[in-house]
């Protein structure tokens, strides 16, 4: 065994330091692997999932009344692969009973918006190979598979389709994910056929092409398919590029904060490793002198100490890679849920490159103090004891000793001044931890606010839907769509019925109409409010909610797309007429990629009676003490004859927000633990170096409690200072990252959603640095309290 090897092995006997080093490296590598892995995974989740599932480049829908299945199948002639035709129908599901185990607060009897159902025999096939995320595929009548993340359902839930013949109730037997988003639910072809009349509903056909890279190529294919069937038979075709754009926009919102956490993690790793290795070499200075006195060369000493740092680091790194990959599983699961893609894993190369980089950082960080060790003058090194150089921090000790504090406390408070550089490093580490906590808390608070703000688009405890246009399916011979007067009459009847219902406090209605808007190509959705909507206005980013006719509110994306600003005028055209309205507010609204205009019904009066409103909804605020469920039950009895229905308004919880919260919480916890480990290591080093003084204090009567107090207060100043630095830095980071996330999502954010840090929140966060430092010091404080006085006094 070589001399160097023996030194390295002897290093292993410094158990506490080696364990701390291994744990710190473990946590740093875990955080780095997780952050880097997520960063990489978030780069192209849609492409990966799409390739894995052989996603559909084009998903075409056909009217069953106008085309035969054979004619639909024949449209696949020019494609590289195809699947279908599958029968489809759009039906409104009503919750029948909950069979899932999670106990979600979805009440029975709630009718949800229409869902696209597809009859499909299996999940496999040449195109759109669905991933079953729970349960199994539907194989028998009465079974249905729901799209994962697309509804509140779980395996075992039962759903009634009241609009279908025979009002069938189906059981959810599985949850599946389609990257192409081809349906919201699937059932067997036989079951679907039973739920739709002979010529009603439609067919779905899925295509893959060899040339599908651009929208133009897909448009050409779309045109060719439409030309292969009777006129108007193809009712729509969705390009995968549209789905991809939406999915990647979601993914892009993750990038700013994952990058922020990743950078924090890496900085923290370098810092802590530096503290640990420098401390390790510094604590062994006298031993180095002995080694050199017996004939070790400077190079051998340097190699030995780099090697000594690398042994626990390698152990920690290997475990960190494993832990990082394991920790990524639930987070990536949430992320893939948010992206609507197949489950992802950390790229293998991340698990190689990150640990290698971490070990290189350890070696580089260790090299500097190791080189110093190698160059130490032998006699000088031999004369160095373990106690820090006397003289440092004396002024601080003297001044603090004058304060009316218990002596152990003032002794502890003065301790950081005896090793200023080490204390500064640990302040930086804890500050990074406090920064991470502040950023994580701010992120969670802002995300909750944003979720709440987005939910304001759907105000009211109860929402009433009424059909304003022709019933679904092909029009009966001779049937004319309802006139404006008839639609108005229906709306008035429904509104009157709701307002007459006991328990109703106030209402307003919304409906949608497709209009041309100056500056935007194609149709734009205009949401029309009627009634006093002051209590149900959208969350505003800037400007204000409209308070009269001729005013509109638009999302950020609309302003960006049109180049308009608040105060500008926008022209809305339809039915051959136009009206002008002034943009008075920028709203928080991510629906329809921001291509939406919100205004008062009177604004559109100039367009005449030809405007075809659809999706009439009456938003109902209930009187105090009224239960939404019982109110809805009573109201539905009244509304059914009017062709309307009420449902409890269930607040949305975005899976993207859940994924972000999970990820931010995981990374924050890791940062805090790494910071705590840094403190632990520093206090262990300090305590070891000052163990003789500790023996003296104990010999003079310092009790274990006083010892613990002294050690804990030795990090109190560090913690407070770190909190005072880390919290403002975290707030600044939050203020930089949140808008970047908003921009990635295509929206600005209300200032109040960014400025979430008020005094009651900031004060505990500042104390958070103290808590991190205190937790890190707790173990060595206990060790210091337990050490035998005689043993400590014998220590050099």
């Amino acid at each position, binding site marked *: 065994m070589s001399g160097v090897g023996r030194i390295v092995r002897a290093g292993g006997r410094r158990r506490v330091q080696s364990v701390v080093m291994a744990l710190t490296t473990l946590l740093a590598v875990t955080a780095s692997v997780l952050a880097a892995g997520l960063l990489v995974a978030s780069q192209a989740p849609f492409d990966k999932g799409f390739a894995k599932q052989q996603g559909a480049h084009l998903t075409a829908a056909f009217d069953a009344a106008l085309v035969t299945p054979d004619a639909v199948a024949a449209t696949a002639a020019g494609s590289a692969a195809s699947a279908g035709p599958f029968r489809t129908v759009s039906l409104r599901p009503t919750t029948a009973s909950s069979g899932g185990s999670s106990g979600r607060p979805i009440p029975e009897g709630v009718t949800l918006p229409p869902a696209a159902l597809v009859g499909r025999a299996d999940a496999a096939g040449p195109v759109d190979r669905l991933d079953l995320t729970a349960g199994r595929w539907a194989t028998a009548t009465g079974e249905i598979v729901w799209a994962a993340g697309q509804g509140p359902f779980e395996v075992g839930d039962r759903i009634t389709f009241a609009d279908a013949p025979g009002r069938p109730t189906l059981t959810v037997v599985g949850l599946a994910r389609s990257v192409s988003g081809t349906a919201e639910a699937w059932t067997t072809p036989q079951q679907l056929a039973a739920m739709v009349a002979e010529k009603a509903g439609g067919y779905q056909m899925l295509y893959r092409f060899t040339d599908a890279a651009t929208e133009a190529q897909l448009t050409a294919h779309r045109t060719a398919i439409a030309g292969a069937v009777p006129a108007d038979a193809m009712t729509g075709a969705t390009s995968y590029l549209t789905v991809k754009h939406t999915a990647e926009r979601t993914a892009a919102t993750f990038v700013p904060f994952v990058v922020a956490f990743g950078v924090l993690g890496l900085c923290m790793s370098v810092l802590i490793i530096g503290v640990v290795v420098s401390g390790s070499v510094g604590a062994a200075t006298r031993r180095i002198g002995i080694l050199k006195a017996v004939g070790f060369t400077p190079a051998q000493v340097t190699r030995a100490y780099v090697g000594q740092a690398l042994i626990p680091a390698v152990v920690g790194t290997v475990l960190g890679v494993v832990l990082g990959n394991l920790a990524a599983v639930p987070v990536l699961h949430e992320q893939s849920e948010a992206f609507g893609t197949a489950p992802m894993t950390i790229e293998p190369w991340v698990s190689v490159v990150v640990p290698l980089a971490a070990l290189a950082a350890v070696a580089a960080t260790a090299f500097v103090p190791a080189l110093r060790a190698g160059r130490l003058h032998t006699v000088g090194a031999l004369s160095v004891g373990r106690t820090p150089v*006397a003289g440092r921090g*004396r002024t601080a000790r*003297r001044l603090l000793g004058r304060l009316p504090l218990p002596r152990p406390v003032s002794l502890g408070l003065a301790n950081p001044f005896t090793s200023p550089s080490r204390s500064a490093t640990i302040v930086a580490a804890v500050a990074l931890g406090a920064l991470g906590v502040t950023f994580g808390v701010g992120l969670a608070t802002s995300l909750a606010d944003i979720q709440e703000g987005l939910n304001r688009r759907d105000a009211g405890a109860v929402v009433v839907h009424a059909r304003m246009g022709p019933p679904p399916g092909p029009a009966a011979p001779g049937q004319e769509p309802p006139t404006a007067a008839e639609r108005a009459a229906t709306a008035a009847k429904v509104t009157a019925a709701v307002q007459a219902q006991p328990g109703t406090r106030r209402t307003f209605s919304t409906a949608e109409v497709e209009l041309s808007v100056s500056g935007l190509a194609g149709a734009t959705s205009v949401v029309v409010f009627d009634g006093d909507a002051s209590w149900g206005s959208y969350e505003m980013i800037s400007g204000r909610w409209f308070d009269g006719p001729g005013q509109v509110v638009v999302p950020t994306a609309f302003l960006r797309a049109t180049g308009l600003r608040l105060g500008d005028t926008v022209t809305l055209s339809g039915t051959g007429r136009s009206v002008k309205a002034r943009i008075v507010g920028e709203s928080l609204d991510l629906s329809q990629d921001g291509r939406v205009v919100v205004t008062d019904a009177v604004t559109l009066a100039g367009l005449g009676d030809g405007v075809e409103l659809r999706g009439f909804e009456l938003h109902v605020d209930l009187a105090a003490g009224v239960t939404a469920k019982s109110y809805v039950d009573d109201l539905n009895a009244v509304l059914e004859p009017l062709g309307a229905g009420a449902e409890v308004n269930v607040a949305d919880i975005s899976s993207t927000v859940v994924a972000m919260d999970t990820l931010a919480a995981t990374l924050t916890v890791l940062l805090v633990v790494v910071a705590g480990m840094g403190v632990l290591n520093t206090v262990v080093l300090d305590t070891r170096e000052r163990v003789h*003084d500790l023996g003296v204090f104990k010999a*003079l*009567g310092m009790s274990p409690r006083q010892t613990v107090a002294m050690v804990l207060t030795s990090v109190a100043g560090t913690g407070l200072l770190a909190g005072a630095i880390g919290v403002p830095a975290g707030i600044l980071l939050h203020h930089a990252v949140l808008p970047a996330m908003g921009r990635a999502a295509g929206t600005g954010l209300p200032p109040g959603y960014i400025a979430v840090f008020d005094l009651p929140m900031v004060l505990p966060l500042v104390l958070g640095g103290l808590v991190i430092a205190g937790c890190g010091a707790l173990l060595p404080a206990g060790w210091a309290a337990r050490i035998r006085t*005689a043993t400590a006094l014998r220590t050099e």
Partner: protein
Amino acid sequence: MTAPLIQISDVSKRYDDGPPALAGLTLRIDAGEAVAVLGASGSGKSTLLNLIAGLDRPTSGSVTVDGVRVDGLGEAASAKYRRARIGMVFQFFNLVDDLTVHDNVLLPAQLAGVPRGEATARAGELLERLGVQRHARAFPGRLSGGERQRVAVARALMNRPSLLLADEPTGALDTASGREVRDLLTALHRDGQTVVLVTHDTTLAQECATRTVELVDGRLSRDVRHAGAHAAGGAR
């Protein structure tokens, strides 16, 4: 017959698998005595001092000091016991280098929670009495060995202990400084302070102690009272 200040009964102490540092030692020391414990290296002298100070526990037997069973005390009770009853002087002074002389002397009182004014007055009085008042604001590193040991003695007396323990108090001092410390300990004993000192220095034992105890391999081999030792008396 009055109760002894220190009663050591059949005490043995063994470290790991080595030979016993103390083997069935029984010793009684009365208040006002000045006892010198002599013996070769490894004879058990320092172990005996540590047991009396509550810094270590015997493997068997009992140690009672000033009515307190020291061998059964927990860490916290042991610390309180030392604060209230024991003053310790070490061979290498064990002053805290980063604290001034004054702050070193104050330390036991501060740990015991003595009011600041009272502690400061007591520290000033001790520094004056031991002739190191002029060094009150200095750090120990600037003092001579004899001066440092005087500071250590002042610190040991801070809480008016019933027992002063000194472990080779002149072991690290030159001849002149050693004499200073010998005179100091003698004077303290003359003033009524009970002193137990461990030493190789027979001169110190003869001049300071009223009684000499010699240990060999952890056992009591000799226990001699000095006929011509100075008389005890006066207040501490």
